[in-house]
């Protein structure tokens, strides 16, 4: 167990964004959280990552040493250390996850420098290596991400997140806003990297196809509640809850 959430509740006024949500995540496992807009999946991601405090319930994280830490009880300094070392966050909009005023190489190198690396040559090498791994041309290392296409920006964001080899990565609709062929390539890339690095991933998506491709397990959310969870193939091939059935049935076949 790397992450365990118990009985999370969070209300925005009368809206119950999270209503008694519990889930477990194991090392190396990819967990997809699916549901329609407003079902509370992004809120769940923020609460799991410690960016938002739940009204009730708690999140436990087993760190690299194996010690269990309660996210709500961490000091801000400890939380930030997790954010920039053992955890990663991939935003839906790469412009939120990247520093647009900083070159591609600087973006990838930022986490290395935050972790204390002070050797320029090493940072350059690592950045070039990671740009290659996400299929970006290292020759464009000193270009601004503004000159990159949406798909390239997203790959750059992934490189920037993975460069310090985190153990746990939160992804919020990583393929949203990209055209279909680019989505397919990106999903393929993410799948390869996740398997290579043995990452644990919490993936929020409304794209059932993305969930099927990447996830080992699926959690289906509706109105802030988990209505169904299980192995990906089981949930998608044999949906039990009527909402899941609707969700699976509404995927367009090409």
């Amino acid at each position, binding site marked *: 167990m790397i992450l365990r959430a118990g009985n999370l509740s969070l209300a925005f006024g009368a809206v119950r964004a999270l209503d008694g949500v519990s889930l477990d995540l194991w090392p190396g496992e990819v967990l997809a959280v699916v549901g329609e807009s407003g079902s509370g999946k992004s809120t769940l991601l923020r609460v799991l990552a410690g960016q938002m405090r739940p009204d009730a319930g708690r999140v436990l994280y087993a760190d690299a040493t194996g010690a269990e830490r309660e996210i709500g009880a961490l000091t801000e300094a400890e939380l930030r250390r997790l954010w920039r070392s053992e955890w990663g966050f991939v935003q839906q909009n790469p412009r939120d996850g990247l520093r647009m005023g900083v070159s591609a190489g600087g973006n990838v*190198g930022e986490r290395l420098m935050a972790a204390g690396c*002070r*050797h320029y040559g090493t940072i350059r090498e690592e950045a070039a290596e990671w740009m290659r791994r996400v299929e970006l041309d290292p020759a464009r290392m000193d270009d601004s991400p503004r000159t990159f296409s949406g798909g390239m920006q997203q790959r750059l964001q992934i490189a920037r997140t993975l460069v310090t080899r985190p153990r746990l990565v939160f992804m919020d609709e990583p393929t949203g806003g990209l055209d279909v062929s680019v989505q397919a390539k990106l999903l393929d890339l993410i799948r390869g990297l996740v398997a290579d690095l043995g990452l644990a991933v919490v993936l929020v998506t409304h794209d059932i196809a993305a969930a099927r491709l990447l996830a080992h397990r699926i959690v289906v959310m509706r109105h802030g509640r988990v209505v169904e969870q299980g192995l990906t193939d089981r949930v998608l091939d044999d949906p039990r809850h009527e909402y899941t059935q609707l969700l699976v049935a509404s995927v367009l076949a090409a």
Partner: protein
Amino acid sequence: MTDALPMRPATRDAAYNFAYLDEATKRALRRTILKAVAIPGHQIPFGAREMPLPYGWGTGGIQVTAAILGPRDVLKVIDQGADDTTNAVSIRRFFNRVAGVATTTDTRAATIIQTRHRIPETPLREGQVLVYQVPMPEPLFRLEPRLAETRRIHALADYGLMQVKLYEDIAAQGEVGSSYNHPVMVGGRYLMSPSPIPGFDNPKMHRMPALQLFGAGREKKIYAVPPWTEVRSLDFEDHPFRPVRAPHACSLCGSTGSYLDEIVTDDRGGRMFVCSDTDYCERRR
């Protein structure tokens, strides 16, 4: 210089309180300065007053000077190293009138030196105070626009972001490149803007015997480096910080170790290099 010897007017202008500011304001400023000295490199907010000169001309420095000035002090004011530029002359004349203190251009004779953009070439000694005019006290402001966030970064000493900027400089220019305002770590704890002094002057801040005070009027911040404090310029292991000066000798005094200004002398490409520190240069001729 015409006023190389200490100059003292017969009386100060009695229409003003001593050193222009009222006593309560000066007391508040001194409290702020004490706090700043107690936490080297940490920016302390203060209630900056309207001063009779525009923002950007040294309103922060002038308030710090006013707060610490005593009747027996000898004041020197420099702007880009020079004692005879408009800004320096006006501020010197201002204190000469409202405080009646002696003024000088001699670095060794001054007890308080207010400066914009330079540290004098003549080494400072214990007992002297160097007051910097600071346009932007926050070293992270170009990188992180949210002030609340920069405060958090300082509180947690989470300075990876600043290193990113240095990385960008090297990537773009091939060297740790800010030729001025190069960020420093003070006492191994706080990241600090040295104000827009050239990188050439950064090493002079390290373990300086004099007290260094920094005043930012528009941004309403004061910070300080107490005497003998460690001040380290940020760099990379394989790209160490290197103070840069123009590779010439001063055309007037022949100095090869001082910081030089390039002066265009005609419209046919003629130019000369002279010391930016006029006091130092004249003393050597």
